[in-house]
């Protein structure tokens, strides 16, 4: 290894048992190299932790290897850990497309640090995947990256009016409608005189995905022939105690709740309160995102249904969109629609 301990192209060549010229050809896509050799070189680069520097990448070359980054919050709900492991596990699959995936993190709940991280990592890699947060500083950072020609994909939660390349994730408005539909169906038939009351436990409004789910949910609820009251509960600044207090207050004030829709991944506080008030299994609960916690709540019946999107598809679509962008293909070529998947206890994967 070189003295700084950083692997260089020579190391990649040795590891892949090919010549330096071949590594060069693969990384810069200069001429045709057999797919099996491309895979070997990319795998070697990956194993050695050799990061392709944008400065080394020949911008003119249509088939150059791309080094892309998934910028994810440092601490976050359980599904993020799953997403990270999917990115790790599927890395090798994308090497044949000459795309190398990396994960970087930013400190949670601080949009200034997030904006700084966007610029830092956006400039270090050839493409960046981010979870959209509606905040002027974040918008500004994405605009700057756009001006510098760095492609950005928003994942799971979109940003609008910024120069992003694409959004990868489910239709969150339809997901909210699906949640309402499920809740109406799972509560069973009610006669015209029975009062129906839903609670919406809303996640942070900084995510467009949460806002859209809320809108979709309300729209579908209002379409129901019987009148349904909806009370809402808005999440505070990620302090667990506060969430617990608010969830308990909700159940104390509304003992006659028919259902609760948790429109973000966070469901812990609501589940604890339901158990405390002995209302688990009596109130229909619909949540989002599959994580160890949501799994166990589905299993014990506290959570009735969970709405999810496929992580491997999310990651695969991001990679393919960057490869299509590089190759000048239509961006969505080879990608698949991200479906709104409904999981009950019985069809949990």
């Amino acid at each position, binding site marked *: 290894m070189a003295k700084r301990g950083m692997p260089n192209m020579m190391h990649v060549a040795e590891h892949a048992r090919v010549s330096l010229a071949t590594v060069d050809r693969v990384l810069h896509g200069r001429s045709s190299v057999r797919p099996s050799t491309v895979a070997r070189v990319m795998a070697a680069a990956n194993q050695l932790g050799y990061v392709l520097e944008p400065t080394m990448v020949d911008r003119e070359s249509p088939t150059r290897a791309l080094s892309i980054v998934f910028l994810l919050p440092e601490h976050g709900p359980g599904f993020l850990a799953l997403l990270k492991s999917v990115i790790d596990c599927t890395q090798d699959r994308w090497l044949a497309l000459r795309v190398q995936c990396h994960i970087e993190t930013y400190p949670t709940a601080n949009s200034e640090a997030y904006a700084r991280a966007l610029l830092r990592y956006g400039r270090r890699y050839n493409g960046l995947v981010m979870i959209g947060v509606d905040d002027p500083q974040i918008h500004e950072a994405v605009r700057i990256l756009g001006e510098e020609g760095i492609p950005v994909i928003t994942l799971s939660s979109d940003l609008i009016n910024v120069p992003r390349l694409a959004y990868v994730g489910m239709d969150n408005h*339809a997901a909210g409608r699906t949640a309402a539909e499920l809740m109406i169906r799972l509560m*069973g*038939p009610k006669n015209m005189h029975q009062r129906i009351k839903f609670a919406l436990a809303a996640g942070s409004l900084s995510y467009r995905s949460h806002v859209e789910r809320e809108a979709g949910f309300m729209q579908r609820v209002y379409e129901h022939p019987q009148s349904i009251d909806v009370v809402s509960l808005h999440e505070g600044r990620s302090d667990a105690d506060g969430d617990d207090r608010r969830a308990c207050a909700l159940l104390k004030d509304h003992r006659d709740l028919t259902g609760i829709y948790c429109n973000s991944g966070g469901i812990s506080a609501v589940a604890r309160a339901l158990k405390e008030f002995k209302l688990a299994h009596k109130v229909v609960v619909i949540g989002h995102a599959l994580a160890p916690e949501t799994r166990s709540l589905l299993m014990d019946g506290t959570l009735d249904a969970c709405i999810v999107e496929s992580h491997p598809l999310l990651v695969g679509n991001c990679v393919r969109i960057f490869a299509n962008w590089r190759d000048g293909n239509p961006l969505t070529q080879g990608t698949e629609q991200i*479906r709104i998947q409904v999981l*009950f206890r019985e*069809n949990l994967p």
Partner: protein
Amino acid sequence: MSKRNLPNMKDVADLARVSVATVDRVMHQRPGVRQRTIDRVMVASEKLGYLFDTANTAPPSSNKPLSIKFLLPDAQNTFSAMLLDGIEYAQERWASHGIQCCAETYPDLNPEALAQAMLRDRQQVDGVVMVAVEHALVREAAQTLADEGVPLVCLVSDLTGAPRTAYVGMDSLVCGRTAAHMIGRFVSGVSAHGHAKVGLISGSLSLRAQVDRQKGFMQVLTRDFSNFQVVGLLEGQEQAQTNHELALELLRRHPDIAAIYCMGGGAMGVASAITQSKLDHRVVLIGHGLTPVVRRLLLDGTMDASLYQSPQALIDNAVRIFINQREGNEPTEGIEPIRVQVMLRENLP
């Protein structure tokens, strides 16, 4: 022996009592040949003094063309038609990987026709994919393919007790359990103690998928909704007209029926019987698939939910299994299992 008195592959095949294709597979170290068969071929070639020259024994090139034969029930079944579309698309999508797909249909789930189709031209194909009919003849044909080293993948419906490389499709037990869970909850809400009548209309019970759906359904119904009563298990052979007549009779005898699970195709017939009996929106109907007709029934509310597997994902997974075999990987490496997806009006893709 050939005239030059030098043994060739045909001579080895004759002596080992296997096909030339099998000798070829052994020579090129392609997977899918049983050890016993390999030994027989090696002994025969040794006896004859047939030399595997180095060019022959070189590891298979990763671009060696693969010819895959798909065998589907006849195309008047809409699902088969969608699978055929998927195969056509796969042909384009995988052409660059040297994959050639061809499709044949066999009439009326006829096991004899299927067994014949499985064995026809087997020397010319590198793999067979089929929707399996449960029958001794089909198992026997599967055994012959295994003996000769032709990999076999069961699609949508599996074959019990016969050698096959992999099964690609939803877990049918999970389908049945999910359907029972939805019916139980949609009919009785959060209290699982309600009394209700449920009808089951299956496709052909010579498909293992249908038998498993029924088993899974009964498992959950008897466990979680013990006051539900199954009235009639009818076999509609996936034909809309037959389904219509069966459902009409069922609804006439049990006008208070709460739900029907249509386990096979042809849900249109059940829906029209419900409408004709003026019971729309009063009978919960759960079906399968996402044909244009099913979409329409979901949208107009006659059908409440449908369990769905993507035809394209099915075909792609089958093709990937053969590519994995060619490259010496585990058959299902890197392949996402087919999930049971719940489709409601609101999350239609």
